[in-house]
Structure formats: C-alpha cells, structure tokens
C-alpha cells in the first residue's frame, strides 16, 4: 500500500509535469495575461505564505501526524507581533515575538501529541480553537493594523524585482526541503512516520523529535503570521479558517501520504502551486466563480489521478 520511497522522488517529476502542463495550457489560452511577469510574480507572491504553512505541515504529515492549528497560530502570532510592535516600536522585536509565539504553540501541540499521546487531530483542533479564541480576546475581535513601516517596508520590499517575502519563504522552504531529504533530522522524521514503534526501539528519541516537528510547524506558522501582517497590513482574525485544509491538500497533492513515512517538500511546493495556478488561470479566463469551484475540484482530482496512474504504470 505504501508508496515506494524511491518512486516518491520520481513522482515529483510527474506531478511537476502536471503543473507544467497547466502553466502551458493557461499560457496558450490567455497569452496576453497569464504568462506575464506581472501575473506570475503575483501568483508566486500570493502563494508564498501558504508555502511556509505547507512546508511545516509536510514534516508533520510525514510523521503520520496532522496540524489543524496552523491558521489559528498564524493569526495569534500576527496579533502578538502587531501588539509588540505597537508596544515597543521595534519591528525586529515584533518579528521575534511572532515567531516565538508560533514556536510556543507548536511545542504545546508537540507535547500534547508526544507525551499526552492524544490524537494529533484532536490536539490541534483544540489549539486551533484556543489560539483563534486567544487572538480574538487580545484584539476584541477587531483586526489590528500593522504599522506603516512594516506594511510598506517588508510588505512591499523587492529584491531583483521579486518581493522580499517570496525570497524569505523560498529560502526557508529550500532549507526545510534539504533538511528533510538529507539530514539526520529528516531521516528520523521519516522513520517515525513509517513505524514509530520501530523507531523507538531503534533508539530514535521519538517524543523529543515529535515535539521538534510540531514546534517547527508552529514556528513556520508564526513566521507566516508576521509575514502576513507585513503583506496585508492586518492581522486577519477571520481570514485563516481554511488555511489548515489548504496546506494539508497541498501536501497530499505533492505526494505525501497521510499515513506517514513518505513525502517530499519539493512535492509540497508543486502541491501548493497547482490549486493556486488553477484558480488564477480560471480567473484570468473569466470563468465564473461558481464554475471555478467545480472546475478546480475536477481538475485537481484529474491531476492527482494522472500522477497516480503514471506511478502505478511504473510500479507494475
């Protein structure tokens, strides 16, 4: 049942081809608007923050866990960052506060999952409610605004024509991808997802590692909160209720198994972009929103089917 890991690598090629096919198709259908640097840059920029969440989620899902709390942690961290900036006037302190807050929530998740042995779904559903509720308590339910120097600074800054936020997210994703693929930390992540009991017997510090993995996911969500605050200028207390599903979907589209042990960050990157490209392309083509939902759903299934089908053909 479990997907051969070696083919996991190859799979990226296939799902990557699906993405490439979509890009080509939209470029042909809307040559004047889709394949412009303006559009593609916006596309990347809009996906960047989700990418961070999905990267953290990849680690979690590879351990056979799940993290529903990312959206709540993002909002909570953004609120803390905004409050700290407001209070201290220091952007650096604000960023640090946001990231540390995210890490804290992640570690809480990890502790409850690893030491409390509560199903990850329940733990993170609980912390989702707690973090969202907490954010609302801190703000009174009214979105906080980012100070102009953050919104106009980090939020708009570009380097080589590409938004700084994109660079940050891409760099972190790349480091995370390399870590998962090539380091001991990554190896233990796969081992735990593949067989937690065997890993424990093999001497992997399973509990500590799980805490680190959930901590990482929380940290990335905290950073995403700060970046989102910079980019959109608001904390978005109502805006992130579907982040968790989006991130999980991206991870699974990218070939990571919900049952753990298998997956790559590179796949997740493609998994983030497939729905984003579909949505963007159909919007540019002027497809009506309701039809978009239908078509995006259908194409998504078809894309993953092509991928599975190719894989199976190889597998036989």
């Amino acid at each position, binding site marked *: 049942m479990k997907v051969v890991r*070696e083919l996991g690598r190859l799979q990226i090629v296939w799902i990557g081809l699906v993405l490439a096919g979509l890009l080509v198709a939209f470029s042909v259908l809307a040559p004047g608007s889709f394949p412009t640097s303006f559009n593609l840059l916006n596309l990347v920029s809009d996906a960047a923050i989700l990418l961070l969440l999905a990267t953290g989620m990849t680690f979690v899902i590879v351990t056979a866990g799940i993290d529903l709390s990312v959206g709540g942690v993002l909002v909570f961290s953004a609120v803390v960052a905004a409050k700290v900036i407001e209070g201290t006037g220091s952007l650096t302190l604000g960023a640090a506060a946001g990231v540390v807050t995210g890490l804290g929530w992640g570690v809480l998740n990890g502790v409850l999952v690893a030491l409390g042995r509560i199903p990850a779904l329940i733990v993170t559903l609980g912390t989702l409610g707690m973090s969202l509720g907490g954010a609302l308590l801190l703000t009174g339910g009214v979105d906080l605004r980012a100070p102009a120097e953050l919104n106009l600074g980090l939020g708009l800054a570009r380097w080589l024509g590409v938004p700084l936020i994109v660079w940050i997210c891409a760099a972190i994703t790349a480091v995370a991808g390399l870590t998962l693929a090539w380091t*001991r930390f990554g190896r233990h992540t796969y081992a735990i997802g593949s067989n937690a009991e065997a890993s424990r017997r093999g*001497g992997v510090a399973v509990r500590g590692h799980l805490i680190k993995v959930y901590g990482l996911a929380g940290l990335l969500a905290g950073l995403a909160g700060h970046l989102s605050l910079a980019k959109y200028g608001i904390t978005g207390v109502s805006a992130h209720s579907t982040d968790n599903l989006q991130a999980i979907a991206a991870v699974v589209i990218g070939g990571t198994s919900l049952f753990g042990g298998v997956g790559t960050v590179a796949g997740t990157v493609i998994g983030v972009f497939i729905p984003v490209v579909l949505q963007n392309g159909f919007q540019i083509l002027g497809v009506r929103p309701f039809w978009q939902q239908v078509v995006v759903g259908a194409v998504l299934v078809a894309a993953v089917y092509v991928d599975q089908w190719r894989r199976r053909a190889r597998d036989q």
Partner: protein
Amino acid sequence: MAVPLIDARGIVKSYGQVEALRGADFSLRGGEVVALIGDNGAGKSTLAKILSGVERPDGGTISLDGESVAFGTVEEARAAGIETVYQDLALCADLSPAANFFLGRERLRPGLLGLLGVLDNVRMRRETREACERLGVRLASMSAPVSALSGGQRQGVAVARAATWARRVVFMDEPTAALGVLQTRRVLDLIRSVRDAGVSVVLISHNMQDVMAVSDRVEVLRLGRRVAGFETGRVSMEELVGAMTGAMEQDERNGRNGQDEAAGRDAAGRDAAAGPGEQAGPGER
C-alpha cells in the same frame, strides 16, 4: 564467578486478562550464549522485550552487573550495550535497508556538512551491504525500501544490525526463522564470533538443532515461568522438547532433571545463575 551480567527475578507482565509472564527468572553472564526456548506463547518474546527496555514489567527485579535497574526505555538498554533482533523485526518499511541499519546511529558527512547533520548515505549503504553480505544476504537494490525485500532479506538486515551494534548483550528472537540454509549457518557462525568477542547472546529459537549447535546453556520457559535450565552439552533434544511441552515434569521420569520439587523455581533460578558448569532442574509450574 563474577556477578551475572543480567539477572532478572520474578518478572511479571500481563496484557489485560492475559498473563504473559508470571514470575519468570532469567540470568546471563558475560560471553555466553544462552538459548531461551519454549512453546508458542510461553512468553519468550515478552521477556526479551522487557530485558531490552521495550516493555515495562508489572513486577520483578532486574539487575545489570549486580546493580538494580528499572529499564523502561530503549535508550537505557542501548546505553548498557544491549541490542535486540525483535521477532517482528521492528524495521521501518518505508526506509531503505541502510536507513534501518543505521537508525538512531546515522553516519554524518565529515566536516561542516556533518555538523549540519547531513547524512553520509554512500558510506551507510556500503557498510550495510557489506554487513548483509557477510551473512550471505544479497540485497538486489540498496535504495528500495525494506517493504520491497523478501522475508529473509529483511531478517538479514535486522540480524546484521543488532550484531553490529551490540557491545554487551544481543537478544535474538528467532533470528533465523526466515533465513535460508546458508544464511542460517552464517548467523550461527556470527553468534559464535560475537560470543568470542565477549558479547553475550540470548538466542530464542524453535530450532533445536540450532540451539544445540550454538548455545552454552538452555533456559526453558513455559506458560510465563522458567521451568528448567540445562547445560547444552549434557542434554538431549528429547529432554528439551519434554521440558518445553511439560511432558517431562508430569512424569518426572528423567532422573537427571527430576530434582526435588522443593528446589522449586527459586533454586532453579539461582542454580542457573551460579555457573555454566551446573544445570538446574525444572522448577514447579
């Protein structure tokens, strides 16, 4: 004689209603090969798991080098130099043989990359292949996951792993069950050479030939209790089978093992711990 390396007394372990161990004794000295035999469900694997730190006993005492320990984590047992081939192998099916071989002990690249935790996959693959081939187990592909290996190949990886890392004791729970004839011979050779290097071996096996061929002592478990202990050189296969199935103690016709009932379990346990030159009789049930 020095204190035993491992001395476990009155180990009790139940799973819900099922009593897997009901006061089992076991002791092991340095550099000896002890076979642990018993019928299916006698509690052999449970005992091995408890002494490897995988399961926590409900009762009883364990001492290591004469010091009482409360194993409960694998780390402790590993730190004490104990390695185990589990009956269910305990491999990560999605990972490659090399990843499993080095699990928890990954080799890192030299230099800066190593400090960053980057794995030295080439080296790990090479060493894994070598260790397996020493057992006569050929791995068709080093990058295929363990789930793609044949039963014997998997077992080869597990045995090679435990034998490579053990410093004081290696528990082998039916290490040759899935192995071919040649590979089984190699594992028996391995057991001897490991023993010669000073590592004690506990061999759990249903194959009496293998037990006779390689062990110094034989301990018999039945229904969660140690019921007999023998010196291998002085026991016949029939006697072993009799002790396992309980046929022997029922009619007690075997003079050599027909000790007084009063010697009982404790006596048997102490005898076994005393030295390889003696042999204990079967304890009461």
